[in-house]
Structures are given as C-alpha cells and as structure tokens.
C-alpha cells in the first residue's frame, strides 16, 4: 500500500519527463498527469514492478475538457477550438491494494494516446468506447472501431461538448 505522493516520486524517478504533475486538489484520490505517448510504458512498468503490481485497470474514461476557445455557430451551439481531451486511468492492485489514478491529455484537433491494450486487455473495449465517444485515437490498438454507436455513424463523436445531433442517419430522420 503506497500513498500517491510516494507513487508519484517513484514514477518521477523512473520516467522523469514523462510524468507531468500531481493534482491533489480533488476531493478524493489525487491524479498523476502523464505524457500521452508514454502511457503504455508506464502501464507496463506499473503492472510488472514488484513495488506496484498494478494488475487491474478498473476503468478508462475519456473526457472532453472543453477548455478551448468557444465560438457560437449559426445554430447557437458552441464550437470548441483548441484545448484538450483527456483520458483517465483508474488502476488498482489486487494484491497490494493500492489505487492509482493516471491522466493523460492530448490535443483536441489531433487526439492521439498510446493504447494500453497490451498491458491490460480490459482496456480493449474501454478504448474503443473512448474512441467512439470522443474520437481519441489509441495508437497500436488492434481493433479500433466504434462500439456503442453504429459502425457507420458519421456525425462525429457524441460525448464531445460541441457535438451536434445530425438531422439524418441513412436517410432516416434522427429525432424519431
């Protein structure tokens, strides 16, 4: 069992630049921010090292931070330019009982995060869901398709804050 500060220090020593910051302001567990292209290495380290043994990924959640510049378009809907999309990894260890929350942020216009498919197989569908809902590209994911939305959904990524409902889907009117 390790507290987040120790984990942060250990990771900082191991990976240096890739570990960005520790956010302790949250009401619950602190969040360690990480470089989005290093996450798979850090994941593998966390899983394999005897100090951590983080063998389980509880949940992987994509988030639209909506921190870019907002411009209203003609329909009065915000269009967000710039800013970031984030992915949160809630990890825990079944043997050592500690929990770690990692966060990676990536550019909204070109969202790319390394996949942790090979570290935790459970991330397979979670990553597909994040791709489906936010359009985050997980590099090296073997089967990055839409999962909850129809495979031919072309109207964008629904959970982004500036998503607009399409009028038609395959010739059918969408609201009913």
């Amino acid at each position, binding site marked *: 069992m390790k507290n987040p500060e120790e984990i942060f220090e250990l990771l900082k020593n191991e990976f240096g630049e890739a570990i960005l910051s520790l956010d302790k302001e949250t009401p619950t*567990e602190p*969040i360690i921010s990480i470089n989005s292209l290093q996450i798979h290495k850090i994941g593998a380290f966390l899983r394999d090292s005897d100090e951590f043994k983080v*063998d389980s990924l509880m*949940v992987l959640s994509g988030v639209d931070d909506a921190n870019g510049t907002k411009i209203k378009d003609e329909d009065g809907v915000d269009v967000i330019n710039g800013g970031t999309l984030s992915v*949160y990894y*809630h990890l825990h260890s079944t043997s050592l009982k500690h929990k770690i929350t990692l966060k990676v942020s990536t550019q909204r216009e070109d969202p790319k995060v390394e996949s942790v498919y090979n570290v935790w197989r*459970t991330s397979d569908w979670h990553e597909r869901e994040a791709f489906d809902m936010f359009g985050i590209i997980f590099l090296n994911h073997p089967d990055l398709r839409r999962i909850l939305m129809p495979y031919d959904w072309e109207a964008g990524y629904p959970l982004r804050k500036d998503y607009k409902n399409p009028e038609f889907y395959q010739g059918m009117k969408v609201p009913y």
Partner: protein
Amino acid sequence: MALKTETMVLNMGPQHPSTHGVLRLELEAEGELILSVKPHIGYLHRCFEKHAEAMTYPQVIPYTDRLDYLAAMGNNFGYVIAVEKLLGIQIPERVEYIRVIMAELQRIASHLVAIATNGADIGALTPFLYLFRDREYILSLFEMTCGARMLYNYMWIGGLSHDIHPDFVRKTKEFINHFRPTVVELNNLLTFNKIFIERTAGIGILPIDTAINFGATGPVLRGSGLAFDVRREDPYSIYNRFEFEIPTGKGLVGTVGDCWDRYYVRVLEMEQSVRIIEQAIDNIPEGDVHSAIPKRIKPPKGTVYARVENPRGELGYFIISDGNLNPFRVKVRAPSFVNLEVMGELCKGHLVADVIAILGSLDIVLGEIDR
C-alpha cells in the same frame, strides 16, 4: 482428395432467445465447433452519459436505475456514494443500514435472475419459474417501501426517498425464513443435477490471471478463485461492520473458473447476503432518512471515482464536477461491459451450445453494457 470446407458465420442475436437482450454474437463456426466469437454491442445504447451531462445531480438517479435494470438499487447506491463523496456530507446511520439491506436484497433478487436464466439457457425452465417466484417476494418488499418494483429511484443523495414501511422488518424476516429452504430445493433440482453439471463443469474455464487482466469482477472473478469483493476490499457505506464470507470457485465438480463455479458462487453469495441482512435488520437505528438531503446539490469542482459491489461486479461511477448543478462528465464502469469482453476468449474451441452456457454464466445485462 480432401473435401473443400469453409467456416460458417452464425449470427446469434440481436433477436435470439438467450442473448439476454439485444446482444449480437458473431460466431465463426465449423459445424458446431466455435472458432471465434465477436460480440457486437450497442443495440440498446441510450446515451446515459450524454443525458447525465444535461441533468441536475438528483435527476440522474432515475437514469441510473435503467443501467442494470435487474439491480437498480445497487446502481443508485453507487451513484449516491459518488456524489456524496464529492459533496463531503455525512449520512445518518439509519439511512446507511437501510441502504445496505436494500442493496443485499437486490443482490439476492439479481442473483436469482442470473441463476434462473442460466438454468433456462441450458434448458431447465422449471427452476426459472421457482426462482422468479422467490424474486417476487423481494420485489414486493421494494414495492412496499418505495412504490416501484424495478426502477426504484430510492436512494437519494444524502438520504432515501421513503423511510421503510412499518411492516418491512417483519416481512423481510418472513422472506428469509421462506428463502433458505428454496435454496436447498434449487440445489436439488438444478445445481447438483448431473446433466447440469455435465453442461457447465469444465466449460468456459477462465484462469485467474486472465480474469484479472481482462478486468473481470464480481462472481466472474470470484468464480476463478480470487476472493475479491469491493465490499471487503474497499469498504463503502457500513459494510465493514458485518461479517460475511466471500465465496470463491473451488472447482467442486470441474475445473476452477468454469461455468459451474461462476454459477455456484452466486448461489453461495445469496446465502451471504441473507447473513448480512440478518445482521442488519434488527439493528436499524432510529432517525430521519431525509435529514441529510441537501437543499441544493451543487458539488465543488473535482473528480471522484466511487465503486460498489453490484451483483454483477464492480460498478464504478467516475464523476467530474465543474461546480455547476449538472455533472460535467459521468462515466459508468459497468461490470457487465467489462465481463463480456472475456467472452471471445472463453468460447474458443467450445460448441454452439456452450456459448449459451458461458453467456448465461457471465450474467450480463445489456442495459448497462450499452448504457
């Protein structure tokens, strides 16, 4: 000359009697032998997460009911715990006790459905009806308490929608007395039936390290032999006050981690839930269940990940608040969603009939997979 053969693609679902809703399985089969299984989900996608962003915090609760509609109390429980963590409020003792009792009753009800449908998938229809009869008792207890049978909206942030009915304690005890013999009957009729054992023992073996790597939780993980239970691991509410065991798969009739173990873990868990209810039911303290409900629910900025042990496994709510009346982001870690991932792995090399048995033993609810 060798005969030219090709594999057959068999679409199981979305309309199929035993895909437990609208799951579509794309089976690649050679005759009856399964080469690969690809689950396709999303037929019941109801945009819960998008909806939640447009709702105030209390308004999300009825939507959580509809995630895992067989265990709506557990869903409410997880959500209110997450928001209460975010708000940092204290909950009256009475509320905690009632919540635990409700969650455990719901666990029994949900496991009854799981066991019943698992049996029905394999062809035993009679236990299905017996178990639904027993579930009926629990549902009427819920109906008596909050007026709804399936989608309760019972647990509120900081409290409960209704106090328990004056008859509730007596009727719950009656139920427990009625319930214990029915488990024995179930074991006679189904659990230890030779045909049932043949159908489920040694089928769909999930080794423990695969289970962990695939993130399986709940009876699926425990069936593989790891005593992992969020109630013990990360005690929420007042679960650390109760004594209960965590049943795990022992490979009693087959190999550890097979369908029968997953099934039997559920049977044993119902017994443990009864134990928890027995410990809690006589100790409900007096108090007001509405006293801690905040007038205006507006959590401070921050993130929270709260998890509870739902009947199907670890149910987690990841909520980001930006300080408004609406949550900024609600992500549900649905246990069935994660448990279903392992399906492709389990089915390899089994027969078409085993796919049904394996799917039944995973006990998925499409409502929470597709959200």
